[in-house]
């Protein structure tokens, strides 16, 4: 069984009090409780403060380009579907630069776990509006306030019939750990939008701001109902629901590819002498 110590990585270079610490802790606890060994897990991350998380852990890692986590994760999962593949990105990374990839990863329903560190601001580039910044937020680059409507990633995912859609809050690590475990347990593409304060650049959406608003979704709520899920997804403002918002049991991509029914692609033997037969087709 893995211990917390097995997941100890570099010392984080995040700002003191950063919302990312809560995510790091909840993630470590979740995978250890789940009994996943570091070598059974690959994290694909992008660029931004979220992208650094695999360096602060110990596991197989592909820290790729900004916005491109999901295509890399897709390639890894298709080549080896026995590997737990986790994609980690920020709101700019996943909803801005990588928006197109998100739409199509959800459509494919490949069994990847996507954790979005959503702090509603660009941190690494020092404080520009992100796709989830609230309309009107004034920044150095948006002196008249952000004009674009705030992206609702939860509603987007529900609209795309995403297999697992949840929201959590890094200030509530017990809840977050539970959601991470649920996402890993679920078979299908899973997105968890994690509200996470940026203590340096986002002076609006602070710990206090979130704490006053987030509430645990009622135990009687049924996430299998898509219409109800839409209603839940639309809630934002004075009350922000956290928990599993939508879930379905669509078949995953890996199971629909007959070639890898019996074993993962990476385990297949290579026999190039087969080409002798194929060459005959050209005569």
């Amino acid at each position, binding site marked *: 069984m893995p211990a917390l110590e097995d997941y100890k990585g*570099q010392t984080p270079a995040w700002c003191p009090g950063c919302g990312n610490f809560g995510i790091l802790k909840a993630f470590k606890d979740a995978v250890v409780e789940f009994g996943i060994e570091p070598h059974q897990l690959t994290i694909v991350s992008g660029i931004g403060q979220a992208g650094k998380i695999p360096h602060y852990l110990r596991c197989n890692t592909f820290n*790729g380009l900004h916005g*491109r986590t999901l295509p890399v994760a897709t390639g890894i999962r298709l080549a080896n579907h026995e590997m737990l593949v986790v994609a980690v990105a920020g709101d700019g990374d996943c909803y801005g630069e990588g928006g197109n990839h998100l739409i199509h990863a959800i459509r494919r329903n490949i069994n990847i776990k996507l954790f979005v560190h959503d702090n509603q601001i660009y941190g690494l580039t020092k404080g520009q509006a992100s796709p989830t910044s609230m309309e009107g937020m004034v920044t150095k680059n948006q002196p008249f306030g952000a004009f674009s409507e705030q992206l609702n990633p939860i509603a987007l995912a529900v609209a795309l019939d995403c297999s697992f859609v949840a929201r959590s809050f890094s200030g509530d690590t017990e809840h977050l750990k539970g959601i991470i475990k649920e996402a890993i347990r679920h078979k299908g593409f899973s997105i968890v939008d994690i509200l996470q304060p940026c203590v340096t650049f986002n002076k609006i959406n602070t710990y206090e701001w979130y704490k006053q608003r987030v509430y645990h979704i009622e135990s009687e709520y049924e996430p299998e109902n898509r219409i109800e899920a839409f209603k839940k997804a639309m809630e934002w403002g004075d009350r922000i629901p956290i928990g599993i918002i939508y879930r379905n049991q669509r078949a995953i991509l890996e199971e629909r590819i007959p070639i890898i029914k019996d074993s993962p692609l990476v385990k297949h033997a*290579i026999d190039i002498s087969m080409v002798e037969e194929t060459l005959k087709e050209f005569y």
Partner: protein
Amino acid sequence: MDYSIKIGGEAGQGIQTIGDTLTKVFSRAGYYVFTHQDYESRIRGGHNFFQIRFSDKPVMASRKKIDILVALDKDSILLHEKELSENSFIIYDSSKLKQRYEDPRFLDIPFVSMAIEYGGGKIMSNTVATGTVLGMLGMKLDILHEIVKDTFKRKGEDIIKANINSAVAGHNFAVKSCMKCSFDIISSQQQSKILINGIEAIGLGSIASGCKFYSAYPMTPSTGIMNYIAGKGKEYGIIVEQAEDEIAAINMALGASFAGVRAMTGTSGGGFALMVEGLSLSGMTETPIVIALGQRPGPATGFPTRTEQAELQFAVYTAHGEFPRIIFAPGTPEQVFYLTSKAFDMAEKYQVPAIILFDQYLADSEWTFDSFNLKKLVYNDYRLRGENFRNLKEYRRHEFTPSGISPLGVPGDSQHLVVTDSDEHDEEGHIVEDADTRIKMVQKRLLKKLPLIREDIEPPFLFGDAKPEIVLTGWGSTYGIMKEAVDALSGNKSIAMLHFSEVFPFPSIKKFDYLNLLDNAKLTVCIENNATGQFARLMRAETGYEFKNKINKYDGRPFLFEELISQINNKI
């Protein structure tokens, strides 16, 4: 014996069917065949043609002079009449073109009414035309019968019979009416040949290299690779994923490669522009990848279905930062086949991106070969897997080694972790900022590997006079036309061709001092299908050698034999 047949018409009229069938007949009969196609970026209409040259001797380029023109529309006659000689013929159906021509070289053949009478419907008129051409050439229909049976075996006996009856009707008509046809067909004693185009050769080459994963976004002229590999996916166990864009395509392939399988993507210039960021990622993370880059005329969308060699410099210099890359520019489908295998081998051996640079002309042109030597294929698994990885005492993905090549472990096969980063990283693969590690990493990833890679690059191929006075130089798809030009001019001239199919890193002169050969020649000409002479410029940058004479063609069409010969003669 050396004849050219052109089939012209609108897209959707069946040019491809007639062309493919005739080509197959000639190749199975043991003749050497070369075909090239010209089509517009549309599904219906426009003007398109399929040109077939066949001979009892090897042929590798198209001639301008046409012996038989199958005109499925009026435009074909307007546009190609001038390509005919006195002994050439145009066959057409006046009921379809709504016009009769009085010129004795025009043979009015009722394709449509014969199709209705003998084949049971207008749809058979292409088969009538195919039979007619074979009749004019004085060839028998036995091979065509075999091909018809193969093609329509799933559609049943009735369809096969209708096709055969239509072909026979066309054939009989030609034999009766084409009294002046004086085609001198030497009956071939040879074995049937391999008939393959550049695209199929890339597909075949990649499945013969252990490629397990292909992700791409459709784009002419590379789409055929995805079609071919997808068709073989089940048999060979290859996953083909159509990505949402080229950025995703290259990143998926990199992910699959990181996870331990050989992976490839394919595109054209515009798509490659989107992949450039991923190319750099391959360089930084030392993740092997093979990219098939099919050139077409740009800039921007350019001529989507035509040909040009204008992405050499793009392939050589694009992407941010400095890292090694390997670029192949095969000239024939046979070279494509072997060099695809070499691209996979070198990409994995050195953990770098390898690019196969081709163009629409090479992609679509069909060539014949007596055979392929499968022993020339290389397959070495350079990855650290299974027990070998499990039993290793310690492991660092980007370990400093004397060769610069670090162990490429398969994640999950061992307790050791495989870590890599697009940021500068340490030996383990974790993000760093310090200058010392940076210097060592650049040395490892780039400076140490580069000379080793260059050692594996083969020098250009010399054909013709060993001490030539005239040297024609080129790269990629001009191989065939240059070789034919050398053949044609070598009777009374000291001439040779220098063809580069491995273009980057630029080949050294250790194995063959081609610079000395060029220095000793009286006339050297660099022949390129682009406007500025990109290869000539690369050569000058890499070797200091400057071509004083260039022949450039940039109308989106390939060089044709007669025009190239006259341009070369102008330089002499």
